[in-house]
């Protein structure tokens, strides 16, 4: 049993995630590392449909109990949002650029084209972010 699978089962045993979430996480693990027989050509990787953000936090100092965040956003929604954002008029982008520069974030949004954002969304399926702290675990991945 590999380490990640063991961690998922441990989180399930501790009640930090539900059985449904554990199943989805294990499925995501298996997609990440498909077990194909030696010599077989790997099939096309299934396209992910959702961006998942999972946060599990133990009981904090406030005593409110553990916190759990589970967000699933369809990647289609991100694409649609990007297309909608591409309608922002140039004069508004110029103002946003000025404010970003003033805030110390010198990003020129006028250089961001819709096709660049589309590519960004397309490559989100390779994204996996894991943040482990003693009492908090954050995972961002596509499934």
């Amino acid at each position, binding site marked *: 049993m590999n380490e990640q699978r063991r961690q998922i089962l441990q989180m399930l045993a501790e009640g930090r995630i539900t059985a449904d979430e554990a199943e989805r996480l294990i499925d995501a693990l298996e997609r990440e590392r498909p077990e194909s027989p030696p010599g077989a050509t790997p099939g096309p990787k299934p396209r992910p*449909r*959702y961006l998942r953000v999972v946060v599990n936090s133990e009981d904090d100092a406030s005593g*409110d*109990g*553990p*916190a*759990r*965040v*589970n*967000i*699933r*956003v*369809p990647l*289609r*929604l991100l*694409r*649609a*949002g990007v*297309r*909608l954002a591409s*309608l*922002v*008029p140039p004069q*508004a982008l110029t103002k946003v650029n000025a404010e970003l520069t003033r805030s110390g974030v010198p990003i020129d949004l006028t250089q961001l084209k819709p096709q660049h954002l589309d590519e960004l969304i397309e490559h989100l399926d390779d994204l996996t972010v894991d943040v482990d702290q003693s009492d908090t675990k954050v995972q961002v991945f596509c499934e």
Partner: protein
Amino acid sequence: MIPHLVTVRHRRPDGSGLRLHVPVLPVLLVLSPLLLIAVLVGVVACLVVRVSPVGALRGAGQLLCALPGTRIEIDHGRTAVLVSVR
């Protein structure tokens, strides 16, 4: 395909809760007069700020159609909120 059902669930710290199942299409039909006015206002706003109204309407439609599958679930102690779009 536009969303069929939006589920909103809220659990308060005292254990009481609220669960709402909102059928989107009937609600849209009931609110269609207001929706029409909102669309007209939106089109005028787009013309004022020189944004293509057709593009904006298409973008908003794509956004609406992409909503199914969205699920937001937040638990904090005895409080919980769930928003699910199907």
